[in-house]
Structure formats: structure tokens, C-alpha cells
């Protein structure tokens, strides 16, 4: 499926910093997990066990972690998506015996069989209502404009690069763990074996050599596109418009194209095209750098509390001053 101009290898020039990013289009993701494999392979990340049932549905990866920087989520829709309805209609019109998935996956649904078996319309309607399908979404670090992890990092291990990406320098990180709860997307994690935090670097090393990140390179459907952020937003906006024309009205961009003061975390370097509410993909509906939200009032409150405690101590002395002098004090335990 074409989604606009194709990005293959993009030469990166260091002069003139340009924001680079990912546009992940969930409507063309087939859940093959090639991105996860390519990421692990290129970045030399250890396996963390593909255990069936580790996540939910067919998601055996479970979570983004210090050693998993791409994570294909298997979102289950409990009703057929508009796309699936469209396919079902085409199948019925052509009379082909297409099999449609049902959730839970207890076998496929054949609409033509359903139409011919009983009293037609009613059976087909019932069969369609039983259809469910998956929406796949390859999750990744969002490389936020207002990056909570970057604000929180006390050592300067997390930096903003010349590509406007957020990269963790493993040779600086001392594993304090503050970036982990500071991420409103639950992306960053600390490796229990290694002791340091880890997350997507947007393949900083590949970018230096003019290569696109491994996940985007390996994606067979171009669900993951890499390029200059501005261009990606344009491509993505055109894609949303085209999906709306096709009747998929729920399509929207998560993390790009919003009003300046409504941007998720100030705008995401890696943004997504979604068709369902963000929560269904495990994404927050609202996100900002927690430090930028709270640092001023929380610091004022901390200073105020400290001063109040001191005032309390002073009062304790004033009130108790005479009392302590009233009796003779022996220096003894």
C-alpha cells in the first residue's frame, strides 16, 4: 500500500540540525515483528525471552524495556473494524469464500457459508458481529520535545542530539533509575542485569553514516517510515486525509499536527497514525514532561515545607525554652 513518497535511505548531513523522526502508520502494520528483530540485531540487544502468553493476545514481547526498543502491540478489537467490514462487503459481493478472523481466535468466519447456510441476512449479520480483528502497532520511544527522561536525568547521560532525538549515553549512565518513572509513556527502563537504563536511540550510529534506522529499513509494509520530521508530518497528514476519504473516519495522528499548546509532550519525534483511542494501544491520552509540569510548584512547596518545619522547631524552642532550664540537667545517658 503506497503511503506517499517512499523513504529508503536518507543521507543525513550534520550541518543544519534537522529533526528526524518516525512515522508509524498502524493501518498498514501486519504484526510481523521484523522491526523488533532488526532492532535487537543491529543494536546488539539481548533476547528477553519470547514466551507465549508473556504479553496478551499474540503479543509475546510484553513491553518496551532496556533491551527491547521496538514492541509490536496486538490490539484486539471486539467488533469488526471499518476496514474489516469493507473487506467483508467485497468478499460477499465477489462471492469468494474469504475467511475472516474472530476474537477469541476459535476459527475463522466464512461469510458466504453463513449466507448460504440459513436465512441469509440474519446469519450474515450475526457472523459479521462475531468478527473481530487485530490492530498492530509498533511502539517505540517517542523522542518527545518535552522529554521527561531528559529533564530528570541527573548525570547528563540523556542528551538531545543534533537530530533532535533523545539518546542515552551508556558510558555516562549510572543507573539511578529516575528516568524510568519520569517517562509518561512508560518507555524507559533499567536493565536488571546491566544496571543501566536503555531505550531507542533512533539508531544514532546509523544516522551518522547516512543510513535509516534498522526498524524502518526492515519494515516490509512501510508502516514505519523514517525521515525529516516536517516531511513525515506532511506525509502522515495526507495519509489521514486519504483514509478519511475512504470512510475510515477514526484515523488520526497521535503526537503530531496538533495546535502548538495541545501537543503531546510538546510534539513527538516518533508519532503514530491510529484508528482507535490511544488507551487501547497502551498510550496515555495526555502526556507532558512531569518535571516541566511540576518542578516550580513542587519546589516552592518543598521550600515552604522546609521553612514551616524550621519555624516549628523555633517555636518548640521558644515554648520549651524555660522548661528546659527549669530543672538541673545531668549530662548522662
Amino acid at each position, binding site marked *: 500500500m503506497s503511503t506517499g513518497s517512499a523513504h529508503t535511505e536518507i543521507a543525513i548531513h550534520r550541518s543544519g540540525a534537522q529533526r528526524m523522526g518516525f512515522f508509524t502508520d498502524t493501518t498498514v502494520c501486519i504484526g510481523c515483528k521484523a522491526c523488533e528483530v532488526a532492532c535487537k540485531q543491529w543494536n546488539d540487544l539481548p533476547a528477553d525471552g519470547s514466551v507465549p502468553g508473556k*504479553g496478551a493476545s499474540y503479543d509475546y514481547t510484553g513491553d518496551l524495556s532496556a533491551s527491547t526498543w521496538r514492541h509490536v502491540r496486538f490490539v484486539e478489537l471486539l467488533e469488526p473494524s471499518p476496514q474489516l467490514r469493507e473487506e467483508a462487503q467485497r468478499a460477499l459481493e465477489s462471492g469468494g469464500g474469504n475467511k475472516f478472523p474472530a476474537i477469541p481466535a476459535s476459527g475463522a468466519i466464512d461469510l458466504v457459508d453463513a449466507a448460504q447456510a440459513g436465512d441469509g441476512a440474519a446469519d450474515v449479520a450475526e457472523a459479521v458481529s462475531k468478527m473481530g480483528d487485530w490492530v498492530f502497532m509498533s511502539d517505540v520511544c517517542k523522542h518527545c520535545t518535552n522529554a521527561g527522561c531528559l529533564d530528570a536525568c541527573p548525570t547528563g547521560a540523556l542528551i538531545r542530539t543534533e537530530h533532535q532525538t533523545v539518546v542515552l549515553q551508556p558510558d555516562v549512565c*549510572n543507573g539511578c533509575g529516575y528516568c524510568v518513572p519520569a517517562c509518561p509513556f512508560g518507555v524507559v527502563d533499567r536493565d536488571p542485569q546491566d544496571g543501566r537504563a536503555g531505550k531507542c536511540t533512533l539508531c544514532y550510529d546509523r544516522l551518522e553514516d547516512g543510513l535509516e534506522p534498522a526498524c524502518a529499513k526492515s519494515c516490509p509494509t512501510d508502516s514505519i517510515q523514517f525521515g525529516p520530521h516536517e516531511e513525515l508530518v506532511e506525509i502522515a497528514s495526507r495519509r489521514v486525509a486519504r483514509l478519511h476519504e475512504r470512510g475510515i473516519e477514526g484515523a488520526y495522528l497521535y503526537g503530531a499536527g496538533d495546535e502548538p499548546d495541545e501537543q503531546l509532550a510538546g510534539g513527538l519525534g516518533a508519532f503514530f497514525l491510529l484508528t482507535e483511542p490511544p488507551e487501547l494501544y*497502551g498510550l496515555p491520552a495526555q502526556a507532558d514532561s512531569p*518535571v516541566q509540569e511540576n518542578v516550580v510548584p513542587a519546589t516552592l512547596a518543598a521550600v515552604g515545607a522546609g521553612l514551616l*518545619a524550621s519555624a516549628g522547631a523555633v517555636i518548640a524552642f521558644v515554648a520549651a525554652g524555660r522548661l528546659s532550664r527549669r530543672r538541673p540537667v545531668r549530662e548522662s545517658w
Partner: protein
Amino acid sequence: MTATDPTTSTTPVATPAPEAIAGDGGIRSYHGQPVLKEPVWSWEIPCYFYTGGLTGASSGLAFLAELRGNDLLARRAWAAAMMGGVASPLLLISDLGKPERFLNMLRMFKVTSPMSVGSWILVVAGGSTPLAAIDAWTGWIPGGKYARRTAAMFGLPLATYTAALVSNTAIPVWHKAHRMLPFVFGSGAAMSAGAATVALTPPGAAAPARRLALAGAVAGAVTSELMEHRLGEQGEPYKQGAAATFRRVGRVAGAAGALLLVSRGRSSRAAAVASGMLLSAAALSTRWSVFKAGFQSASDPKYVIGPQREAISRGERRGAARREPRI
């Protein structure tokens, strides 16, 4: 959009029924899995919340006691401050993923990072407190009075910055409590310092410490209650699991310690020691409760998703996704 029956090709057979979405607040999460990561911090961190508060507030108590000429109380309070001041950096270093890289904390001074600012506060307070304590006991430290002043001054932020640190995370039960949590920690610090000093000091000289411990206990109970009240449903983790257990232990030990201190603390050294230990246990347990509540609030997506949608529906658009949930 409708699919059509192949035989009649006019009968609509599938209408997209707006199906109620299961889950909390009418919104489905991703298979009920958490949105946020739980912190990776272990037992050292809540212990440090306690020892940091103890060090900071004890330094202040000791300094004020000196000013009032109560040298006996001052020395015992400096001893309490020194115990906390030595334990604090050890606890923090022990919790690092790479303890041998603890000096990286001082690579830079980063105002956006409460942990960076806090590390510098701890360096100054933790460095000056033992000097101050040794000087108070022996008078051997050259320029010891400056160490005492420094320890007291930096003890103030040391006692409360950890609350600002955790409320600058995305963990809802900490993040939403950013105005109250420093007061909870400040009260706890006052109680910790008062309690430790009461336990270490002959009752005759310990009147200010007793008052500080009691005031801290009362303020801690009030501010905790207020914080949970203001958190509303978001405060539920405090009533569940380990957080609730620590909270209960904190309240019982706090009440028992305070009662004992009021009734027998002035007359009996044994009672003073026992009540000091009870109040110290209460302070430590309360920090553990806050710590555990953070984990519990991160692990259940309902505390993350529900309030976000409520905020968006109230019209808060900052950092908000546009797509509304289908209900």
C-alpha cells in the same frame, strides 16, 4: 458502512453498533497492562527518604539548641544528624545500577533535575553534618562553626527535596500530590529528628525535641490525610496492599509513640527511648507507604487513564490527544 447480502444486495446486514467499551471509566486499556513503568528503586530509597529527613531536621534542631545554649541537646541532635548523614549517601549509592559510577551524579549541576539538585544538597549537607557533629562533641574541627551553620542551612532542603523529586515523576499518586507531599515529608522529617533526639537525650534537656516530635506527628497525620483527601480516587493505592499496611503501622506506631511521649516522656528515660523508637518507626513506615503507593498507582492503568480523560473532558488541552474514546 454496510455489508450487503449477496442474494438480495439491498439488505443491510452489518451496522456498526456502537458497542460499550469495557474497563474502568468506560475506556479500554491495552489488555489491562500498565501505561507507566513502575520505579526500579529498591528498599534503599524509602530508607533514604527517612534518613535524609532525619539528617536535615536534626541538623536544624541541633543548631537551634546551640543558639539557645542547650549544648546537651545540641550534641545529641548532632549525633542523630550524623547517623543519618553517613547512612544517606551509602543507601543511595547502593541503589544505583552502577554504584561505582556514583561520582557521575556530580558531573553537572542540572536545575531541571531534582535528583541532580538533590545530589548537590546531599553532598553539602552530608559532608558538613559529620564535621559539625564531631566539632560539637570535640571542638577539634577548624572552622567547625561554619560546618554547623552549613549543615543546618542545607538540612532544610535536604528534609523535603525528596518529596519534590518523586512528585516530578509521572506516577499519578506522587505527581498529583506535588503540593502536599513536601509537607508530608517535612512533617515526617521533624518527627524523625525529634524522635531520634528524644531517644538519645536525657528527658530534662529534651523538651524542644519532644515538642518537635509531637508537632511533627500531628502535622504528619493532618497533611497525610489532607493529601489523600485531595487525591480523591487517585489516592486509592494508599488504602490497598503494602502501602495500606505501612500506612496503618505508621499511624499505630505514631499514635502510641506520641501518647507515650506525652504521658511519660518527661519523667522516664525508658519511656522516652521507647516513644522515640516508636515515632521513628512511624516516620520510616510512612515513607514506605508513600513509596509503595507509587508502585501500586503505576501498575494499574486506571489511575493513569481515567484521570487523563477526566482532565481532557474538563477542557485541559495541554499535552492531550485529540481522539475521544468511543463509549
